[in-house]
């Protein structure tokens, strides 16, 4: 594990994550989540659906970004950056897995904010290239690219994405329901094995060949078509209800 992963996964990373509840605020408002027991089920369901998808997209993005890093570019080739077709295609795969417009907007807002802070923390032509191709990428796509630039392998990117999918809602539930923060962290701890398993599977998914023979960054999006696409219909409904709510504390 690269130590940069700790920075990336830290909820204190100033990338706007604190204002997203991942559906938890609306779930609390509708009574679907009232206590620790409900929260445990909410988090487990979220992790194994959208969390799994985010992890896979982040791993794919990290693998793509790795092929674009200056070190990976053959001498005499393009300085680095680029990869526009790849970024656009991967972001489209994220779109196709996010049916809810509210969820797409939330993912893109978080991706844009992460990309902005990361470009100051870990300046890289790879991130410039992503921002140029997709100014507001889906969060997992941004996270994977940032992870690669920070020196993390795809498995770490996947782990950070899966972790991110549950820590936001967990923190929001602590704030909204006044739950015991230690009890909620115990809940998160019980998800460790699932987090590891999801990250491992995500990193094992096929990715574009990191060392294409011609030296050009791989633009083989077909391998992304098969990435996981687990839907969470209740989260879609919650997200759509949330953006229409007249009172809300969290963006999503």
């Amino acid at each position, binding site marked *: 594990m690269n130590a940069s992963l700790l920075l990336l996964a830290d909820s204190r990373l100033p990338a706007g994550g604190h204002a997203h509840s991942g559906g938890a605020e609306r779930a609390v408002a509708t009574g679907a989540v009232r206590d620790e027991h409900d929260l445990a089920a909410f988090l487990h369901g979220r992790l194994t659906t959208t969390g799994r998808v985010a992890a896979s997209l982040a791993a794919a993005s990290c693998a793509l970004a790795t092929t674009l890093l200056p070190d990976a570019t053959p001498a005499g080739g393009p300085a680095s950056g680029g990869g526009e077709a790849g970024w656009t295609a991967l972001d489209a795969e994220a779109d196709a897995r996010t049916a809810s417009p509210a969820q797409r907007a939330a993912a893109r807002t978080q991706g844009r904010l992460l990309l902005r802070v990361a470009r100051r923390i870990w300046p890289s032509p790879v991130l410039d290239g992503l921002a140029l191709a997709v100014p507001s990428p889906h969060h997992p796509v941004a996270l994977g690219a940032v992870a690669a630039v920070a020196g993390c392998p795809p498995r770490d990117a996947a782990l950070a994405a899966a972790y991110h999918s549950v820590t936001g809602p967990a923190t929001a539930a602590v704030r909204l329901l006044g739950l015991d923060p230690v009890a909620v962290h115990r809940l998160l701890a019980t998800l460790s094995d699932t987090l590891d398993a999801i990250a491992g599977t995500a990193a094992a998914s096929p990715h574009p060949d990191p060392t294409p023979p011609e030296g050009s960054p791989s633009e083989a999006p077909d391998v992304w078509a098969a990435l996981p696409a687990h839907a969470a*219909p209740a989260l879609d409904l919650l997200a759509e209800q949330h953006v229409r709510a007249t009172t809300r504390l969290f963006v999503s």
Partner: protein
Amino acid sequence: MTTPPPPATPRAAHPPATPGPATTPPDTHRTALPHSAAVHLATAPQPSDARRGAVARGPGGRRAMTAHAAIAAEMGGRGRVVLSTLRSAPPLTLRQTGPERVHLVATAAGPLGGDRLRLDVRVGPGARLEVASVASTLVLPGRGESVMVVEAHVEAGGRLVFTPEPTVLAAGCRHRMVVRLTLAAGASAVWREEIVFGRYGEAPGRCHSRFDAVHDGRPLLRQEFVVGDPAVDGSPAVYGDARCVGSVLFAGDEPRPLAAEVGEGRAVLPLAGPGTLVSALAPDAVRLRERLALPAPDGP
């Protein structure tokens, strides 16, 4: 579950669109077959032991089947749609029930564990086709996993409406559903998918469905539903206390039926690409259908 097929025009079996076994077995009885054997059977009515009631005896009621059915609709002369292929393969039996309409008629129980079923649908340029089914599909346990694959292609100007009855996951089943819907630029489709978590009062078996819609070479919608893991099914993030999940996809050059909206157990979701998804959760199949319904003229 035993709704009789609607009156159907008896139809001569069409030659397979793709090269099949030269000698199609004339016997329409449920023949014991090895898992890997492909069979192409005529569309003749099945004997009574094909009824679900008969198979309710248990998984041993019949052996696993492998079947590959196909439909192709093309524009013929004088602007009429011609079904250039209508190849049944029990238990996937096809009946033409209208000029541009085909019904799936289940002529055997199941799918059962071990079944490998596949349906190919092709709508040629400018052609129209509706595919429906006469009754719900009750997925039953058996030896291993049952698999249902639907591969659909719609060419430019073509329009496919695919609205089968729900898939009901009986206790103990292990089912995999794969749908690949490919639309050319200028094509459109309406696609309904409904999954019911077990019969009344019954815990569902396991099911993993995957739906991939690609429009003009770009991904439009990719969705997987996993049912049967109690820790996930009941999650307020996934299905909550619902017993059914369903969606209707309006894909391609379909006029967007409605703007984004959300109601009790349902949402109308404009996709990033050309299409809209109506997504719903419900306590039962009747309410699921109500929630998926749209007042739009093109609604299913």
